[in-house]
């Protein structure tokens, strides 16, 4: 045993380290992130500012400057009276078309894909993995390879040009990623839960609807977010499989802004652009972490 008395404090540093106010390294990190943030926020700022100005002010001034005189005229015009071709009822038509497309597409594609994921995890049958592999490969096949034959299929089914045709297309092309999402989620649930439900006499649908779905609300939310943004933002399928009456908002927006006729009304164009971006943007801002989780889940585990 050491019996010598131990001094209470020895010379040299003791206790908590004296803090410098802000380390220069940290300062650089924040500066870099701030510059990046400006680059990312600039377009949003310009959109909002331009959409609140009158055309005379735009012609004179600086697109980054805030409006001297705020006007909501461009928003009203973009929504209700901007012209595409002969139609002059504004983007509202495209907005409602998009709603009519997105709602059934999201519901049907998620219903189908979640059942796929469930069957793939819990009720494997001969060949199920093969079909799934093909499905995943399908996610990487350029759409351009499949669009024309799908035109023929939709025409044969009598769905070409209708909202329901586009719903079918979105269900098909959303299937790989959403099926993967659900398959990975269901595979992460304990298999014993499924076994317990079988011993309890629940069947294919009973286990799915009464045991798995109630405990899978987060992943359903992620899928809904992913699908709403994806389908709302679609342009290619909208322009191919619908006709001017049923064009989704993105297609109508492009037609308004990039039309070659007439005088360019930049404020109306920016208001229209903002209006189109507003739906996915609000979903993104409201859902926050779930959105991130959705793209990470869809991507990393792929």
């Amino acid at each position, binding site marked *: 045993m050491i019996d010598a008395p131990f001094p209470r404090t020895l010379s040299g540093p003791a206790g908590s380290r004296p803090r410098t106010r802000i380390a220069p390294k940290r300062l650089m990190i924040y500066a870099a992130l701030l510059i990046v943030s400006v680059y990312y926020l600039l377009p949003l700022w310009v959109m909002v500012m331009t959409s609140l100005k009158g055309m005379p002010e735009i012609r004179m001034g600086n697109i980054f400057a805030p409006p001297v005189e705020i006007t909501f005229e461009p928003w009203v015009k973009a929504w209700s009276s901007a012209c595409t071709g002969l139609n002059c009822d504004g983007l509202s038509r495209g907005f409602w078309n998009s709603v009519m497309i997105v709602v059934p597409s999201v519901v049907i594609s998620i219903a189908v894909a979640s059942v796929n994921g469930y069957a793939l995890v819990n009720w494997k049958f001969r060949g199920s993995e093969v*079909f799934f592999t093909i*499905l995943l490969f399908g996610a990487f096949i350029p759409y351009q390879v499949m669009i*024309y034959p799908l035109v023929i299929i939709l025409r044969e089914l009598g769905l070409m040009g209708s909202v329901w045709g586009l719903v079918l297309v979105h269900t098909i092309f959303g299937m790989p990623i959403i099926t993967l999402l659900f398959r990975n989620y269901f595979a992460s649930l304990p298999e014993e839960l499924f076994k317990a439900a079988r011993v309890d006499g629940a069947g294919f649908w009973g286990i799915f609807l009464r045991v798995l779905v109630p405990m899978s609300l987060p992943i359903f939310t992620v899928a809904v977010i992913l699908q709403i943004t994806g389908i*709302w933002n679609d*342009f290619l399928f909208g322009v191919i499989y619908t006709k001017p009456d049923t064009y989704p908002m993105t297609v109508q927006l492009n037609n308004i802004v990039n039309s070659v006729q007439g005088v360019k009304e930049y404020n109306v164009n920016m208001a229209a652009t903002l209006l189109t971006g507003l739906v996915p943007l609000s979903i993104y801002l409201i859902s*926050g972490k779930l959105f991130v989780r959705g*793209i990470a889940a869809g991507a990393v585990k792929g």
Partner: protein
Amino acid sequence: MSGRDRPAQLLRNLPAKLAALPMILTALVVFIGCSLWTVVHSFTKSRLLPKLDFVGLDQYDRLWSTPRWLVSIENLAIYGICALILSLVLGFVLAALLDQKIRFEDGFRTIILYPYALSFIVTGLVWQWILNPDFGIQNIVRGLGFESFVFDPLHNPDQVLFALLIAGLWQGTGLVTVILLAGLRGIDEDIWKAARVDGIPAWKTYLRVVIPMMRPVFATCLVLVSAGIVKLYDLVVALTNGGPGIASETPAKYVYDSMFNKQNLGQGFAASTMMLLTVLIIIVPWAMFEFRGKRRD
């Protein structure tokens, strides 16, 4: 059902098979069937309507002697390489910055990722406005006193890809950042402690230890970004519509225009088959790598 009889093979798991029918049909009819249909029809001289009137490789000969297709391919290659490198490098730098236990991390991440929620159409139209020579950046800089300043990529065939890159990276880098950030977070905290104890500087730890450990995450990003690049279409339509002239045409746009504007289906089929081939060249090695990796586990 009596317990002693083995149920018929086809009827076993019947509800599962019925429920998977949409998936089976999608896989077989759309992904395989439609792709094969297009490949087969690329060897025909279909114009307004698809016809099984085989002409060998004529469509491909014509495709590869069409200046617009050659420009499209060149554009895709240049844009693709630049976008790939820049989005991975910038994405990683941003992810590493966000990983420094900073304040407002959620805020910064929200800002970097929000463009990803917007469509390419919206992205293209905003940047078209910002790059507008009469009102946008060029006008502002001139207003500051640099009268001869020129920055008009949308109307300069040599710079138009630059405009596409600015807009494309603005929209897509956030995704790469978020995925790489998740990858960084997945790295064992003890690695950092060990490096600190060994006295290895942070940048060296990233370069020699962390990045090699994140190879699968980088591979995923690579595949995702590449797949997006090959499909590049909406952004071009909104930002430049292929102009000036044919300076910013892309293969996807070539396919669409051949099929739906020029009534030249055969060209569209041949061009899309070339796109499929490109993707297979990227995907197949990756899939084999992944598959081998999984088998090792």
